[in-house]
Structure formats: C-alpha cells, structure tokens
C-alpha cells in the first residue's frame, strides 16, 4: 500500500531499491512538482547503487491529500517527521531535497539532527527572513499571474500544453489552500541550530541560479 497517514494527512509514498540498506528520503518542491520529479530522474540511478529510495508527495501536491489550511514550513516538517516514524527503517536517513523540499530538509535536520545522516539539496536554501520575503513575492506573483488567462497562454506557447496543464493545477492548489499566506509566515530555524549540524551537506546550484550569486 502506498498511502501513509502522517500528521493527520494521507500521503502518497513510493519506494525503490533494496530494503535494509541506507535510506534516502526525497522531498520535492512546491507548485507543479510531485514525487515524480524524483521517480523519473534520480530515484532509479540511486536505487541501482544499492540505496533504498523513499519518495512522497507533499501535502497539497500530487496524490497526497490537500487540506485547505496548514501549509507552513513547520507543517511540512511535522509531515516528514510523521512519515519517518511510520515508514520502517527510517531511524536515520539521507534527505534529498529539491528547492522548497531542501528547505524542509534543513528545518527537519535543525529540529531532529539525530535522524539525519546527510543532506543533499538542489537549488535550495534553509529558511531565513530573506527567504520568507522572496517566497512571499514569488508565491504572490504566481497566484496572481496564474489566475489570469494570459500567463497560461504564454506558458502554453513557451512550454507546451502539458506544462500549462500543470500550471493550471498549481493555480487551483494556490487558490484552494492557504499555502500562499502560510509559507512566508513560517517560523525559520535558529541559525545556531543550523550551524550546529554535523552531518555532511551537499548543495547543488545551476549557473543561472539566484542563489549562485549569494555564495
């Protein structure tokens, strides 16, 4: 069965690779993403190296439940904590996070350092006041623009019909939940909790990343 109830929400969970080996838990980004971001990309190569790969759809995304409220970073961290308690063999895991998924991974590690053996993130950063400001602007813009037809028409021309359909689904999610308000209002982890982390951290950024200039 690939449905796991964690923190009061039914989560869609998928696994690849051999049981009883080091476990990598993949956390995807918000918006148009789902566990498929990993399933069709890095999950199989990771499983082929002998790792067990656990993927799940974040609340509001993919085939996981979409409650109307409860979309702060802490809600997502509680979901992850609940999942790791429910899924066997997740006492200490490697977290692989894309974008917001990496932000969840950092917050989880700050809260439960003993449960995290290592962190790898793609285009991501820990939550901080500047992060909240940026997220507020990006989410606000996405919600406003996607509610208008022109943006979807532009996405269709630029990226094709299927991407436009994903964007439309994301617009519905933003419209029917408190995510746009909740994410920027999230509590951010204390800096000393993050700097106290002793597990290895790998962060990967593309050349055009807005984070590349910061480093």
């Amino acid at each position, binding site marked *: 069965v690939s449905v796991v109830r964690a923190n009061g929400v039914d989560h869609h969970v*998928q696994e690849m690779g051999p049981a009883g080996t080091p476990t990598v838990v993949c956390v995807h980004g918000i918006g148009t993403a*789902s566990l*498929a971001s990993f399933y*069709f990309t890095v999950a199989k190569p990771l*499983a082929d190296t002998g790792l067990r790969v656990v993927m799940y759809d974040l609340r509001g995304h*993919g085939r996981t439940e979409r409650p109307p409220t409860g979309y702060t970073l802490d809600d997502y961290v509680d979901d992850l904590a609940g999942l790791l308690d429910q899924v066997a063999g997740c006492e200490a895991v490697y977290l692989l996070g894309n974008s917001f998924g990496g932000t969840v991974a950092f917050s989880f590690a700050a809260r439960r350092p003993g449960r995290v053996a290592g962190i790898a993130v793609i285009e991501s950063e820990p939550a901080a006041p500047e992060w909240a400001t940026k997220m507020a602007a990006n989410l606000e813009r996405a919600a406003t623009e996607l509610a208008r037809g022109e943006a979807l028409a532009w996405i269709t021309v630029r990226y094709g019909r*299927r991407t436009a*359909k994903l964007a439309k*689904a994301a617009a519905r999610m933003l419209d029917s939940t408190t995510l746009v308000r909740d994410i920027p209002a999230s509590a951010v982890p204390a800096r000393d909790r993050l700097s106290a982390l002793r597990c290895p951290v790998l962060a990967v950024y593309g050349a055009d990343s807005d984070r590349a200039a910061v480093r």
Partner: protein
Amino acid sequence: VNEAAVNEETVLAEITGMLREVLDGYLDGSDVAGIEVTMETRFHEDLEMESIDLVALGSRLSERYGEWVNFAEFIAGLDLDEIIDLTVGRLVGYVVAAQRTATVTA
C-alpha cells in the same frame, strides 16, 4: 502465471481498467469511463496523464503482475521523447514480455 494472462488482449483490458482507476477524479471534466483505450492510445497526448499519474499506474502494475513487471525499470530504459510519446501498446508489450520471462524462470 496462467497462460491466458500472457496475452495482449487480456493485458490491454486490465491496463484499461487500471487507467480508469488512476484517472477517475483526476481528469479535467472528462468522463474517464467513456474514453476508448487502444494499443495506439498515448498516455500524455490522448489521456493527458501527468507523470504522477504514471507513477500511480506503475504501482497498480506491480500489485497486479508482481515484481517482474517493474515500471521504473521500464521507464528508465526510455528517453524523454519516448516517454512523452509512450503508447498503451508499448506498455502492454512490456508486461506480456515480462510475464513470459517470469513464467520461464519460475
């Protein structure tokens, strides 16, 4: 594995049933039950399936046919264009072949 199951028509019918389950309640304003699924039907273009719907279909395939039918393995052997143009027929062919392997090995 019985001989009848290792048959394209049977597998097509079973996969069609799984597609209805997977897409029920997810397909925008369409009547899933009314869609005719053939060997030529394309997952993306014709059924408008998203990648997460394919993952859900993959789960049902392994529940029904066992570990020999490994959807992730099947997809990993395709390039992006092939995944986008993937037809029901190609998946049926894979399932039939995988079941034959399972039968021979068992």
